């Protein structure tokens, strides 16, 4: 019902728009057609897109989103018919559940074999049988701290509750990431649906609020580089970049465990240009291209062949970019908790924020 009404409204809107605007921008695409890609912001080396267009003659129409949650309704409504998206683990699971993705024809993506076996094994958590997702980037969530601003070596999430660092802590402004930290501190699963565990996590986050300087997403990076805060929760992919800019910064995976995430290319069910989408994924899996992207965005690549090509030993063996996950306990990947779970988490988060 919801979907139908949404579609009707969209059709109304589109028809009114087309009455007013003389369509001047009917793009015919490149000589070999077009592919519509919807990816995270700043999540690709723009040069690789140009190279793809040159080599294949396929025009790439490229759009960006900021969070999985912003991407999902747009794709679901089908207002723009994208061919390719790059969601995270739990969102892929949600999209599979809601029948928004189509199975990958692996025969058409030979370069997918460059991706390490372990990443496919990990993908099974949200994509059983590896049917829908081609890993693109992965990483952990951890603590970034400024060595000159803390007194002791940091290895635990509990430092985020240390009153010494009042007004010096940056938290992630996203529901699941914030709850992950609190749940891990209490020794619970970050995919918990247990009312008591979640209430305990909520209390913990409320307790933390007076110490937090700000809840931010992308700005953790700039604020840490600028020395605005001593400690911040951050994605590992940003850590290498921040260290380059400010050598005082150090990244650590806390001992209580954390979130190991994978963002993967998925072809949408309604894709009009499946063949071109496959070519695009295959191109992205090529070692030299994956290397270019890694060097540009500094998020860990699952592409083993590309990792071999990294010239700088420090980066190739970096424990930030390529940690040996077997050393850590309680690592988990987010799973989709259903609409009910989403609502529960969001309501608790609102209670924390309005406190």
């Amino acid at each position, binding site marked *: 019902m919801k979907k139908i009404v949404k579609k009707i409204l969209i059709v109304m809107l589109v028809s*009114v728009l087309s009455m007013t605007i003389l369509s001047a921008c009917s793009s015919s695409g490149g000589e070999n057609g077009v592919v519509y890609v919807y990816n995270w912001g700043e999540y690709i080396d723009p040069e690789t897109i140009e190279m793809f267009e040159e080599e294949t003659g396929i025009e790439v129409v490229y759009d960006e989103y900021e969070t999985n*949650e912003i991407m999902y309704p747009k794709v679901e409504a089908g207002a723009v018919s994208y061919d390719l998206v790059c969601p995270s683990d739990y969102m892929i699971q949600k999209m599979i559940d809601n029948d928004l993705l189509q199975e990958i024809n692996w025969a058409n993506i030979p370069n997918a074999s460059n991706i390490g076996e372990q990443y496919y094994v990990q993908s099974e958590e949200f994509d059983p049988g590896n049917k829908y997702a081609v890993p693109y980037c992965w990483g952990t969530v951890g603590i970034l701290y400024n060595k000159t601003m803390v007194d002791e070596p940091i290895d635990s999430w509990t430092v985020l509750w240390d009153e010494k660092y009042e007004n010096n802590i940056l938290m992630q*402004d996203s529901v699941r990431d914030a709850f992950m930290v609190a749940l891990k501190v209490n020794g619970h699963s970050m995919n918990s649906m247990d009312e008591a565990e979640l209430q305990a996590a909520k209390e913990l986050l409320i307790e933390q*609020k007076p110490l937090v300087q700000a809840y931010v997403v992308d700005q953790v990076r700039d604020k840490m580089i600028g020395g605005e805060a001593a400690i911040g929760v951050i994605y590992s992919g940003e850590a290498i970049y921040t260290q380059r800019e400010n050598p005082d910064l150090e990244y650590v995976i806390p001992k209580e465990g954390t979130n190991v995430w994978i963002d993967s290319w998925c072809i949408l069910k309604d894709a009009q240009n499946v063949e071109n989408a496959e070519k695009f994924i295959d191109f992205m899996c090529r070692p030299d291209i994956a290397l270019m992207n890694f060097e540009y965005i500094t998020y860990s690549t699952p592409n083993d062949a590309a990792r071999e090509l990294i010239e700088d030993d420090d980066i190739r063996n970096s424990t930030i970019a390529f940690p040996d996950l077997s050393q850590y306990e309680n690592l988990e990947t987010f799973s989709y908790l259903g609409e009910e779970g989403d609502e529960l988490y969001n309501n608790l988060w609102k209670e924390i*924020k*309005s406190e």
Partner: protein
Amino acid sequence: MKNKKLNSLMASPYILWSIAFIIIPLIMVFYYGLTDKDGAFTLENITAITAPEHIKALSIALLLSLISTVICLLLAYPLAMILANMKGNQDKLIVLIFILPMWMNFLLRTLAWQTLLEKSGVINQVLEFLHLPALEIINTPYAIILGMVYNFLPFMILPIYNVLCKIDPNVINAAKDLGANNFMTFIKITLPLSIPGIISGITMVFVPALTTFIISNLLGGSKILLIGNVIEQEFLQANNWHLGSGLSMVLMIFIVISMIVTAIFDKDGEGSAL
């Protein structure tokens, strides 16, 4: 007759525009606000405003936007009077100076304030250099009020300035001839005549301040949840368009009230004519 036809022809782009960008979006908001996930009619999304966290977000938003509106009025009125009393083209230049920043994107200006106010920001570095105590208002309600006042002040100045300019100097001279001193002239003549401008200024500051979410995100460090932030979260994070629309409808009540007030006081549309 011919004139009428021409008129409706001229109006047609505007009619299409308002259908596409006002009427249809409003219908969508009402549709989502009055239905639940299965498309059945419900008032739950509207009564949800009574939930403690929503009431709290609404009252903080009301409080902060009220304070900002009052500050804007206190700052804008004297300035508008000074401008209106200026001779020649001087006032035009000063008005231009106030409008000039509005040519720059609103987001960028707010981000600039973040950089200015930060702990190690520009202002604090200057204060430190002068051995003065640091200014610690970033990520507090004070920074949000500052952001609101800064961003919306021109919307208060311009309508008041506009109304003051239109006051016939002979009216004021007459008051003085009849023995009123400056203060009496202001209270009895200037102020009552400028009320349409004041009211439209108040609306133009209060409504955007009440609904903002960007200012509280950027300058409040997302620590202070305004009703605008709640709605933003419902749409962008929780993907619950129904609740988001329902809460927007509650906000619309406040907007409609201020529009009615404006309409009563500003019958000639003097204040809003920029």
